């Protein structure tokens, strides 16, 4: 479900030639420890794998997720890698998605109005997936109409 495409980077993750070499040469295991798990959520350290060849980098913001008690959350210690996600949909009917970066944060700060779980997505990528969903919808409607016309013709 992931396809290889050219990369985008976040504005705060500058692309340098040295970085490309480093990333290409090293497989990195990052262990992220979660701070303060909510009751009932026994989340242990999560390995986050950055693999070369799949253009797959994961950004994970650690912390417990407890939407009901945001005030109890301690400041989250974050270890960050980047998630780059590129996709191809519908067996080529729609074409490849544009590229973008997705950073997801499991926890936010202490203020109760901050969503405890959020997705860090650019508008560009959001529009891309929306366009794919619309294309899928139109294709489905066309398919349904074809079936109806076939049934009426019988």
């Amino acid at each position, binding site marked *: 479900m992931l396809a290889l495409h050219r990369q985008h980077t976040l504005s705060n993750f500058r692309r340098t030639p040295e970085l490309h070499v480093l990333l290409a040469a090293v497989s990195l295991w990052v262990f992220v420890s979660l701070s303060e798990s909510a009751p009932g959520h026994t989340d242990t350290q999560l390995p986050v794998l950055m693999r070369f060849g799949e253009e797959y980098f994961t950004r994970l913001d650690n912390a417990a997720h407890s*939407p009901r008690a945001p005030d109890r959350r301690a400041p989250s210690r974050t270890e960050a890698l980047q998630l780059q996600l590129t996709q191809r949909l519908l067996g080529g009917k729609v074409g490849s998605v544009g590229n973008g970066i997705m950073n997801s944060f499991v926890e936010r700060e202490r203020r109760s109005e901050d969503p405890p779980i959020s997705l860090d997505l650019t508008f560009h990528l959001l529009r891309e997936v929306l366009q794919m969903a619309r294309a899928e919808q139109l294709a489905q409607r066309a398919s349904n109409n074809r079936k109806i016309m076939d049934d009426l013709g019988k």
Partner: protein
Amino acid sequence: MSGTSRAQLCFLLLSVTALRGHARFLDIQDNEISPEGLLSLLSSELKRELPEEFVYRRALRCLDMVAIEGQFTFTAERPQLNCAVFFIGEPSDIISIEYDSVNIDCRGGDFIKVFDGWVMKGEKFPSSQDHPLPLYERYSDYCETGVSRPITRSSQNVAMLFFRLHQSGSSFTVTFRKLINPFPCNVVSQTPEGSFTMVIPQQHRNCSFSIIYPVEIQIGELNLGQHNDLKRSILGCAGSGDFVELLGGNGMDTSKMFPMADLCYSFNGPAQMKVGCDNTVVRMVSSGKFVNRVSFQYRLLGHHELQQMKGNSVEDVCLRA
């Protein structure tokens, strides 16, 4: 019932069924059309009783957007720790998400949460000012309440699913349905071009129509249902309980966006404005005393138009990072 009147009744029901577009579900046996069979086709529950082969199905991706009703399954081939699926319907839809089968390890840290709205970069739509529920009630966690309450309904035409699955082989299946909302309040537009009429029928609420594109908005009619007060219009809309505002910004949260224009008097005739931001919102604030209505159209701004706007303006309120 005589044969003639029976035939006339059948013909009448057949015509009505055909006009509703449900004639394809007729099953005619032995050239006999029973009135009971036709009457059942007029039921509004028809959609839910479609045979299994008509249900749309596909696999979900870790990052996905779904706009079609159907059944969607996610199967983790490897640990998937940060996944989200956006659901969107037509402006007059609300969304129903039902858990069909779930195979996750809640105690192992897996979760599936439905959010009533969209949240991106810590900003949520609708904003807290425009949504009837407090923030923590907008998240519904399968591990806490999903078994007892397998169906979640949104308050507007958008919803989201967040999930984390640690083990390969974990999976879940959800059914996504759209239900009719007669007075849509908060809407995210599926398209960069279109038109919409927002009506708030004597309700004390705020409603936002969000277009996640830079667009030109043309307001065709605004009816705030109150006596036009010229003095107030000269002084601006401050203090008015009923008004429409155009907002622009680079986030989802309408309370953090910049006001581009305020309209607090009724008028007919197009008033247009270009908003060169990532997100353009038409927001109506309603006191509840009147029936308020605004009709508008919008179209995508071209690249050259955006460049021209940036060149002409001294201050760009939608600065890009």
